[in-house]
């Protein structure tokens, strides 16, 4: 295995030790649980631990160690692994999404097994794309960006692997658990207590690795991208721990009760939910944008001051905005007012980042025209601006009375996730893959252009159809006759959705086709790795000898 070749004998021994611990942990889980999802998850951990022990043990002495000169280069092997996982989860998560979109149009097609019901597959889609696709992309690019902007190598070679493999184990536990019917019933926080605990260990390791590497930076100031990545890591840890505080029914059961109750539970959940959008789906990806866009455009960031306003505005105001998910509910009115006003004040800091990114392209517009990779990033910045405006607008209470519970919300989310998050990830992937596999360009440069148009067409069809769907639903639900009776029955509002659901399936299908093309293009590029070495792409800070 090429990856193991990047580890010294001592690092391989540490890796073996950790894998053995995972094996024992999995065995203990399976043994205590005996049956159900937790037992299967224990078995998965056990098999993974065993496979890693064999892989590392088998090559402990007979594969040559890396030379000491490795310390004068960046450590990119984990990033390469992370990108492969990003692409796998993209295809899986988006395919499940398109399938579910088709079921909305054609519910009779639901297969007759519990495991394939809509309710169980829906979190496979959301967790698959947010955590599997988005999370792997964030971790992989954060390692890359951290090293380049600090001009320092990652402080150790084992913990990045622990973070990536541990995170993907969490994602696999999550997806397989949902299919077996296991859930905490908290949106975007469905995995059960033991998976949550495991993620805490992974995340703390991630944080320590990040901050230790950052401490070695050659440039005294910390680059904006790293502010955002740090905010992402730190706040996600906080959100995850608080929202998932729960008591297991027994230690051997994959079920638990949350310690929160009633309206407090709802408030904590949406404080978590909204800040998952803010710090998982926004802050981390802004870090990505702040690195890959100026590098690709070869332009300096337009305004340092705007970066500061945007960063502190976003991290401060987002924290208050979660209650706008609970307008017109049992949540007290004053909490709703605060959520609404802080959502409005969030708009300018959000637009400051979008504007900063777009103004950075001044002087490089010809590149946006010619280079689909840079165009992905430009479109990402535009959709970031659009969806943050839409979000602040929908947080206004009377607007929310129309949009809440409708497909407008789903359309809004996808304008952010397809138009902003996925676009910036694809931009980063097309920048990174040739570089990390030592080539000048992707294997099929024209496919990048195709992917761009598939992605933008799919996103527009998806978002526009669900705007129409949501506003239609909202208006139908609130319409009364002059006699005070409802103007429409609920089933009529469902039937009115059919054309929009068909269109959104088409839009999602186009987007998925683009992602598939990206995965194949990356695979072809990886298989035709070159030998281009960029001599200037190396750490300035010296790594202490071991």
């Amino acid at each position, binding site marked *: 295995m090429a990856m193991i070749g990047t580890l010294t004998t001592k690092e391989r021994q540490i890796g073996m030790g950790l894998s053995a611990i995972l094996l024992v942990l999995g065995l203990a889980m399976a043994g205590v649980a005996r049956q159900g999802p937790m037992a299967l998850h224990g078995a998965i951990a056990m098999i993974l631990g065993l496979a890693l022990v064999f892989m590392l043990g088998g090559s402990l002495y007979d594969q040559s160690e890396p030379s000491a000169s490795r310390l004068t280069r960046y450590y990119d092997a984990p990033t390469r692994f992370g990108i492969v996982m990003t692409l796998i989860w993209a295809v899986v998560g988006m395919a499940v999404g398109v399938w579910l979109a088709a079921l909305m149009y054609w519910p009779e097609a639901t297969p007759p097994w519990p495991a394939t019901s809509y309710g169980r597959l829906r979190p496979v889609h959301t967790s698959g794309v947010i955590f599997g696709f988005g999370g792997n992309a964030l971790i992989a690019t954060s390692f890359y960006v951290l090293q*380049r*902007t*600090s*001009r320092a190598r990652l402080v150790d070679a084992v913990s990045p692997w622990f973070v990536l493999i541990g995170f993907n184990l969490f994602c696999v536990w999550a997806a397989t658990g949902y299919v077996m019917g296991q859930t905490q019933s908290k949106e975007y926080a469905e995995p059960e207590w033991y998976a949550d605990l495991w993620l805490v260990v992974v995340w703390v390791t991630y944080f320590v690795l990040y901050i230790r590497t950052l401490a070695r930076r*050659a*440039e*005294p*100031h910390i*680059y*904006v991208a790293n502010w955002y990545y740090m905010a992402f890591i730190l706040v996600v840890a906080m959100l995850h721990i608080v929202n998932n505080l729960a008591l297991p029914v027994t230690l051997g059961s994959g079920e638990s009760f949350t310690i929160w109750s009633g309206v407090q539970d709802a408030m904590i959940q949406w404080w978590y939910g909204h800040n998952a959008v803010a710090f998982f789906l926004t802050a981390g990806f802004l870090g990505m944008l702040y*690195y890959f866009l*100026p*590098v690709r455009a070869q*332009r*300096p*960031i*337009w*305004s*340092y*001051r*705007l*970066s500061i*306003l945007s960063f502190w*505005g976003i991290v401060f105001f987002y924290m208050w905005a979660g209650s706008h998910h609970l307008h*017109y509910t049992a949540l*007290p*009115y*004053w909490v*709703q*007012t*605060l959520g*609404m*006003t*802080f959502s*409005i*004040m969030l*708009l*300018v*800091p959000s*637009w*400051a980042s979008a*504007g900063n990114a777009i103004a950075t392209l*001044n*002087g490089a517009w010809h590149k946006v025209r010619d280079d689909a990779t840079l165009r992905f990033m430009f479109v990402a910045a535009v959709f970031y601006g659009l969806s943050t405006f839409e979000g602040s607008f929908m947080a206004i209470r009377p607007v929310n009375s129309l949009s809440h519970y409708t497909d407008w919300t789903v359309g809004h989310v996808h304008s952010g996730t397809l138009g902003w998050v996925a676009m910036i990830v694809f931009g980063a992937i097309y920048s990174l893959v040739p570089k990390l596999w030592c080539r000048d360009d992707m294997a099929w440069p024209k496919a990048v252009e195709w992917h761009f148009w598939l992605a933008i067409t799919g996103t527009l069809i998806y978002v526009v159809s669900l705007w129409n769907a949501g506003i239609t639903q909202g208006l139908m639900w609130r319409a*009364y*006759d*002059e*006699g*005070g*009776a*409802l*103007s*429409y*029955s*609920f*089933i*009529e509002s469902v*039937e009115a959705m059919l054309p929009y659901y068909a269109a959104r399936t088409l839009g999602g299908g186009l987007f998925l086709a683009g992602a598939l093309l990206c995965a194949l293009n990356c695979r072809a590029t990886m298989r035709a790795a070159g030998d281009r070495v960029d001599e200037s*792409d190396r750490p300035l800070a010296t790594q202490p000898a071991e």
Partner: protein
Amino acid sequence: MTTDPKELDHADPHTGNRDVDPVSGYDTTGHDWGGIKELNTPFPKIALVALVLTFVYSVVTWILLPAWPLGRDYTRGLLDLDQQAMAVERLSTIETLREDWLTRFDTPDFETLSDDPALMAFAMPAADRLYQDNCSACHGRSGGGGPGYPVLSDDHWLWGGTPEDIAMTLQVGINAQHPDTRWAQMPAFDWMERSDRHALAEYVAALPSGAADHDGAAAALFAENCASCHGDQGAGGLLNGAPTLTDDAVIYGQDTASVLATLRNGRQGVMPYWSDRLRDAEINALALYVSRLPDDGAADGAETAQASGDTAPEATQ
């Protein structure tokens, strides 16, 4: 390593800046992160103005609406709004509109009600919404029924099809939790000899076409076991929940195989009672609407159901 840009290599000793960007004309801040630089662009005024505007909006909102917690209390806001009170007020406005015509349905004098076209123009579209939201999931968008669920748009009724009968069925349900529920059961004839059961099934299946042999052994079995509920030779009409067997309208099907399944396992369909969910006037309006489904349902506001192309499933054979 110094953090002062003025002391960095090639920096202007006065400003600390190292180079000027030819496109924007601005200096950089002097930092360099592996090739990335950033411009020292002055803060855009429009951003500042916009930021202040959002702050003003928020402060005004805080003054007008409930906003900040104060220990056990919170700032009430100048408008003194309360979301509970506002919701109740809006609901009562709508309810007042509805009371105007709905109270007339409190007394189930269906003939008088039907004779008032102005009332019907309000009531039947409203009853259609009630029907679609509460009944259509089982009985179909236009009363076409489905396997196990009666057709409501024809003339075949298990418990009577007058508005009064339907209102009673809605009030108490069939085999429901209500203490006065209508109750009926088709018992299982699993104790019967297999050959007898087959003969009986063939006899019943032949009843609608008139091809049944009324002098055979099967007819005797029928008279002995079935006629008390289904009437002589399946003529029915006893309004006891047992269907007429001569009109091809049995909801579980009347081919030999279906009848055999019914004989072997028995049947006991359930219709929930609605008196806990709908008030009497609503039930009466709904009963009238359902009773009118076959002839003028479309004219009464069920046009959306008709227009949707919903066809009645073949459940009545």
